[in-house]
């Protein structure tokens, strides 16, 4: 009894003051919730060939240089495809954080392409919870090869290809992101009447982040049946993203030669099964044209 009370009081005091310090921090924890947009679902705005659900930030120019070498099954004589390369050089620019435009030129069928991509839903947590990111993508491609039959009447419109795509995806965790892209490619002119002008496809793409700066990407494009001639295949690509500050290096294997939708959706002919695999890379370098406001 003699010692109980002082001990009790001391204990109470100690507990009280300890609780006090914790309380101070926890008092601060009751912060007004803000909207936290989820970012970096993918390292860059392309998965491999497909557009990812990321857009280019406002005021940023993203210069992309992409190569697809010949197929591995060409053997040692062509250094497993490295003797040949198909390239695309292009630039994407972020007008706002949600609106991206881009231009490019591919050596594959000497094609120019331009696109607009608008992200209308952004995955977010906090005050506003949104489980998905969604973007609309539209592009026009202009093929500039010499006419195969210069003698007949040829129309400029025959050179045009259009692609419309919805990109819906989610960053499920720090290391896993998945997206689906229903796609339609419209070709003004096709070779035979057996081919359809509109090609409908469903693309799926995912990313697994392995380390802070390395990610594994894969994408598959399923073309709905009876639209293409036999011999055309679905595009499958697997690759790594390596990020080094301002650059993203994407190294991959794919059975598609073209790097734009009319090509890789509707004109993929190679087959993974017999080594019809292209090694390729995309190098992305971002330049800040308009510096973020800093007041």
């Amino acid at each position: 009894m003699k010692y109980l009370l002082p001990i009790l009081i001391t204990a109470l005091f100690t507990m009280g003051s300890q609780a006090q310090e914790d309380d101070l921090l926890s008092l601060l924890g009751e912060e007004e919730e803000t909207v936290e947009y989820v970012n970096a679902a993918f390292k860059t705005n392309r998965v491999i060939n497909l557009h990812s659900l990321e857009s280019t930030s406002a005021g940023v120019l993203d210069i992309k240089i992409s190569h697809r070498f010949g197929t591995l099954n060409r053997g040692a004589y062509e250094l497993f495809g490295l003797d040949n390369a198909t390239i695309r050089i292009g630039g994407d620019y972020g007008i706002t954080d949600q609106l991206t435009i881009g231009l490019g030129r591919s050596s594959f069928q000497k094609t120019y392409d331009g696109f607009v991509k608008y992200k209308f839903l952004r995955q977010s947590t906090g005050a506003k919870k949104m489980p998905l990111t969604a973007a609309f993508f539209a592009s026009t491609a202009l093929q500039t090869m010499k006419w195969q039959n210069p003698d007949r009447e040829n129309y400029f419109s025959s050179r045009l290809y259009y692609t419309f795509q919805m990109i819906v995806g989610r960053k499920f965790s720090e290391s896993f992101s998945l997206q689906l892209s229903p796609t339609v490619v419209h070709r003004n002119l096709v070779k035979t009447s057996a081919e359809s002008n509109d090609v409908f496809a469903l693309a799926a793409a995912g990313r697994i982040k392995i380390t802070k700066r390395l990610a594994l990407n894969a994408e598959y494009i399923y073309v709905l049946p009876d639209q293409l001639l036999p011999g055309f295949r679905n595009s499958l690509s697997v690759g790594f993203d390596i990020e080094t500050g301002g650059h993203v290096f994407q190294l991959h294997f794919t059975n598609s030669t073209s790097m734009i939708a009319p090509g890789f959706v509707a004109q993929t002919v190679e087959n993974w099964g017999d080594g019809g695999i292209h090694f390729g890379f995309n190098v992305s370098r971002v330049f800040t044209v308009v510096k973020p406001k800093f007041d």
Partner: protein
Amino acid sequence: MNSIFDMENTTEKIKRGITALLLLLITAVLPAQHYLAEEGKVYFKSDAPLELIEARSTAMRAIIDADKRTFAFSVPISSFEGFNSPLQRVHFNENYLESDRYPAATFSGKIIEKVNFTAPGTYTVRAKGKLTVHGIEQERIIKSELTVSGAALTVRAAFTVLLDEHDITIPKIVYQKIAEEIEVEVEAVFTPE
């Protein structure tokens, strides 16, 4: 043993005990003098040979308990703006500070010097406590300038954070672009709660 049966003595002790308990209760129940800051400013600078990076937040929240001289500061990592490019900000959150896992940087502890919070003036004090950045706690003593003017308190402090001490690693490729020692400046205006 005797004292237990000594009624008078025991009564006296119980009385004293009750008084002490009452005093304790009163202290606990009486509202402590708290000062709150809602929009505190935090600025940081990474001055490396090849690149200068600056960012700031105005979302720091802080509280000071004038009676106990304890304090707590907290700033959400994702609230920092500035940087040299939007990508840099993404990397800051994603790769360096990992704001998903460690959403806030905090500093909490006790002011070493006794301060009269009612007498206007500028005091230089030392704040001793735990600085938590990137989930790593470091015991720090940070020299601060505390200004009492009317009912408001202003706290200003400048200190440095060593990335290494908080397990923030810089890859070799950007070694020349990120300073190992980050200069931080903090300013907050407190009002009584």
